[in-house]
């Protein structure tokens, strides 16, 4: 087995960083212990994460099923304004 840590090629890999956020019914965005009450604050948070790591950032957005899609659209736009590389939405299995 090749350990990436000791591989000479490991330094060339650019692994995306991944954060998960949750949008509640009030439209607040939660990431871990932090709650962002405005989209501007969340955008700055994404910008700072991208700037600090230098790696592509993937934001996973979870939300209650009854939340209007408009709220998700606002969060997606905020992610891309903060220079996130991609946005992911977890899916549930359809029986």
């Amino acid at each position, binding site marked *: 087995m090749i350990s990436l840590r000791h591989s000479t090629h490991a330094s060339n890999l650019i692994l995306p960083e991944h954060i998960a956020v949750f949008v509640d019914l009030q439209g607040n965005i939660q990431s871990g212990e932090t709650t962002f009450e405005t989209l501007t604050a969340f955008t700055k948070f994404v910008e700072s994460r991208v700037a600090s790591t230098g790696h592509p950032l993937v934001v996973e957005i979870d939300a209650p099923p*009854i*939340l*209007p*899609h408009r709220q*998700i*659209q606002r969060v*997606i736009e905020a992610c891309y304004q903060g220079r996130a590389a991609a946005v992911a*939405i977890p*899916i549930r299995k*359809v029986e």
Partner: protein
Amino acid sequence: MIHPSAFTLRQTNFVWCIAAVSVASAGFALLAFVFVQTSHPTSASGGIFPTLPARLRQSKPLDFPFEIALRLDAHGRAHFAGTPYRLHQQGQADRLRQRLADFRAIAVDAGSRSSVTIIADGDAPHGDVRTLLSLCAQVGIRDIQLR
């Protein structure tokens, strides 16, 4: 003494001779130009624009994915090519899944990628969006854009 009419006849013959030589020279020059162009070493297939075929041979065909837009309204209906499917009714969700599978199969047969763009109404519940994303993922469509 030369008669004036004789002089005029000789002058006319001289002019015709010059014109014939000029036309022959121009024709020869044109043939020489075409020969040089077609025998250029970089032009294997010939032609007077020798660099164009070589560039065409180096070009690669553009890869256009098979694309389709799914419109999701606020009442749980996904519209595929104008046909509405209710996501909350099992039979219609299954038919939509089958249509997505057929769409992907066509793209695979054509050696192309399949791409789906979901245009969701702002009032559509997030759960319906996830259901639609799940249907796409189940049939193997990975290139999904959400609006």
